[in-house]
């Protein structure tokens, strides 16, 4: 089935895997810096990462060599299997109070929610490429929303708020890509913001004015406009009961974000320490292995979620700029390939996968410098982490496959 003849070497966008490898190399340098005092090889993040890079490369090859038509054909099957996989951890033992991990008899645990992002994108791309969406009718976007919402809700209950948000957010660029007017996307997002702003009277008033302005300039009929406006107000009123439904740790994260100075040894500790590490790095950093914040273990989860703090402290602003440029280049290339794609399925898959990468990069990078609340989201290619690394390279494999313009 795998058709090597048709694989056009010239057309293959090697720059994508090259960018990813470059980022992984930077990650390895940072990991080796924090690894030298690790007691054993199994616990040494550097060797662990090398080990997982082998799996990641295998995953990349598998994804890259799988014919596109197969993926297209079995998109819904993969999606269904994926859902089962995501639900499975609920029947296993909890890890640190969460159901994120699946014990698969290996020395490492497996985190199916990482894969969920991929199959959600594929299923969405399949649906949106098969059907013409008329976004003005809510009925026509109900199914794509449900496709994204269902795995998101499962993941949210694991609970993994970060991954769930990434998964649900993918729907907006993909709808936009399939021709939805930004105004209708705005209408989709608006209720969420209504809920969030409802905690503050001033913010809620400003937000209500913005909604009114957008509705006014979009020449909506008076009745539907008014209905929409008051619908949002209604969502705002819902926010309090929804807040009470959140887990205390989720409430805590939001509160810590708003008042980080309240609890320097609690949840805000991570942000404070991370900012201190990054800020003290300055332009050129303290040098490899010289990061005092990092090496004295002031920084928690430094090898995964906060790897950028290590890099920022030891290699400085220069390294951060380099990383951001590589990510920007990578994502921009994916968008370009998506634009140039001949078929809609590839184009939508690419924009979906690119959005996932961008969401990860933004959330992780912004979190380490306190721009947004702490979300347990790692940085693609750079952070240590088994399943996530493999997933990232799987995505790269898919992206490269979808970027080759041939039809099979």
């Amino acid at each position, binding site marked *: 089935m795998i058709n090597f003849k048709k694989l056009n070497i010239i057309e293959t966008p090697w720059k994508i895997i090259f960018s990813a490898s470059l980022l992984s190399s930077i990650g390895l340098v940072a990991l080796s810096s924090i690894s030298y005092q690790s007691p054993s090889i199994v616990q040494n993040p550097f060797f662990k990462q090398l080990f997982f890079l082998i799996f990641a490369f295998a995953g990349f090859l598998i994804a890259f060599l799988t014919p596109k038509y197969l993926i297209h054909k079995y998109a819904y099957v993969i999606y269904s299997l994926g859902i089962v996989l995501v639900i499975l951890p609920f029947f296993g033992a909890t890890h640190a109070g969460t159901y994120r991990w699946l014990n698969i008899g290996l020395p490492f645990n497996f985190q199916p929610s990482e894969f969920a992002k991929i199959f959600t994108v594929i299923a969405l791309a399949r649906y949106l490429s098969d059907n013409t969406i008329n976004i003005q009718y809510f009925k026509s976007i109900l199914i794509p929303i449900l496709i994204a919402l269902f795995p998101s809700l499962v993941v949210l209950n694991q609970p993994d708020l970060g991954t769930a948000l990434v998964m649900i957010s993918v729907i907006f660029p993909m709808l936009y890509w399939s021709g939805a007017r930004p105004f209708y996307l705005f209408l989709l997002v608006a209720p969420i913001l209504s809920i969030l702003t409802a905690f503050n009277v001033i913010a809620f008033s400003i937000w209500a004015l913005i909604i009114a302005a957008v509705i006014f300039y979009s020449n909506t009929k008076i009745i539907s406009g008014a209905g929409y406006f008051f619908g949002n107000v209604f969502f705002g009123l819902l926010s309090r009961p929804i807040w009470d439904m959140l887990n205390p740790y989720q409430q805590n994260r939001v509160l810590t974000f708003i008042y980080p100075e309240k609890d320097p040894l609690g949840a805000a500790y991570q942000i404070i320490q991370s900012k201190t590490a990054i800020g003290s790095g300055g332009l050129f950093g303290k040098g490899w292995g010289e990061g005092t914040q990092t090496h004295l273990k002031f920084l928690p989860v430094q090898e995964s979620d906060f790897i950028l703090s290590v890099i920022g402290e030891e290699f400085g602003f220069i390294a951060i700029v380099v990383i951001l440029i590589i990510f920007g280049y990578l994502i921009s290339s994916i968008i370009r390939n998506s*634009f140039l794609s001949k*078929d809609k399925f590839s184009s939508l898959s690419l*924009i979906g996968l690119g959005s996932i990468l961008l969401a990860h990069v933004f959330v992780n990078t912004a979190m380490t410098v306190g721009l947004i609340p702490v979300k347990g989201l790692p940085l693609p290619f750079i952070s240590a982490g088994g399943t996530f690394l493999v997933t990232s390279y799987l995505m790269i494999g898919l992206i490269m496959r979808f970027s080759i313009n041939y039809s099979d």
Partner: protein
Amino acid sequence: MLKSDNLVSSRQFFIARSFAWFMMLLLGARYFQIQIVEHEIYRLKSNTNRIRKVNKNAPRGLILARDGEILVDNYPVYVLTAIPGEMKDKGSQFKLIADYIESDSSIIHSNYKKYYRGRFIPTRLAKDMNFLQLGNLEENKLNLEGVYYDQIPERFFPNGVRAAHLFGYVKEIDRSIRKNLKNKAAYELGDLVGWSGLEKQYEAFLMGQRGTSFYEVNASGREVGTASELDDTRPIPGNNIRTTIDLQLQLFCENLMNDKKGVILVGDPLSGGVLAATSAPDYSPDFFTGLITESNWKDMSTNQDKPLLNRYIQGTYIPGSIVKMITQAALLKQDNFDKNNKYHCPGFYQFGDRIFGCWFTEGHGSLNLVEAMSVSCDVYFYKTVTELSLENLYDTFNQFGFGSKTNIDIPNEASGLVPDKSYMSKRYGKSGWSRGVLLNLAIGQGELLVTPIQVLNYINLLSTKGSSPNSHFVFVDNLPQNVKPELSSDIWSNIHNGLRSAIISSNGTGKKSDPNFNDFLVFGKTGTAENPHGDNHAWFVGWADYNEKKYSIVILLENAGSGGAVAAPLAKKVFEKIIENSRFASR
């Protein structure tokens, strides 16, 4: 199969791409803000984050005797400390410690609470650890994570001198103490501060400068090494202070006062320095070192004999006859007073409708001023003092420093009381008192109250004819100005004659104080102060001229009876000791 064509417009492409790069730019800008603009803030933060400052208390300066012997020394004691943030299970660890050092875990717990200052600051659990206890702890170190021991300098008193009131004591600074300190910045919690006596008075000299060490710590607070870029400062010990105390004489006087209540002060009138000072009963000077138990403190503070009272500066006593020299001076200052004029003493004196008795009820017969001083006749003064006004007498008392503090160099001195017209009117009403007050004041009774240190200063002034420097305990460059009574040399020699006569004349009240040693000329006056609260207080005051030196002495024995009978013999012993010492020194 993939039938539907891609219909993405270049506008969508442009917007998507711009959005992606905008995100990167936004992130880059935030990193620029933190890493470049606010770099300095975070650099400082990261340094203080990983560096722990540990204070090393400076040993306090020593307190020396006049010849350099050490009176108050420092002695290293082991204290058991714990770093709260490193301890796993406080309750069970406290129990273990209590077992190992044979203490009670509730005591350890209460210490922990008392000294707790922060999660990563060593907190004291127990003190005065001996080597056996340390050994026990060391053997079980694995169970005692976060428990350490440390050496701290503590006061000890090597020469057996008790003078607890003189030395005072130091206190460890806790929150409430620190709040009330004047120069807060110089102290941190756990530092020692002089709390009374010389320790308090000379705090600035004695305290020294604390040293600081810097350790690099990790996030859990464990030390992982020294911080190489920061220099440690070694503690600078405090300055020693040399007191005017004569070690041998001090020990001798302390022994004399065993089982007695009262004061012995020995001074050097020529310099104002105090050679020996005892206030009995007192307490062991290390009473306040270490932790005082509640019951110990209760016993001490409620003791009827008031051992905590420093009698020679805080005790106010009725002086009795020892202030007759004031009356004598006041009389002699009057132009129309004839010191040779004899007055008859029948043993009592009638003033208005009141009878004032002489202490010698049989009567002294006729006497002049010097004779009256010699036998301490009261009636002579009753009769002569009627020529004086209350102001005359009051002023003379003031000239000799009574009624105000002597500015001796230990804190909390009392000022005593010399009544004047306004005081009496206030106390008894305008017509509630009569000139009888004058009669009482003339013989040192009535409202008059003095402190022994005022009396010593008064004796110093008498012996030096008004030129003695201010009394003091420590050799310093800038003594406060002493009072300087101006009297003619005639008056001075008349006073000296009276005091000499009290010692050497056959019926002199103070003759029991004379050691009868060649060239050792004793001048003195006894006093038996009527005490409204109990038995009479016995006084002996005076000085000796010997080898061009002068030795002043003040002895007060509470509720002991007659000055001539009990205080004077004690003075003799002190004088003999002085003679013995000076012969020993000259040899």
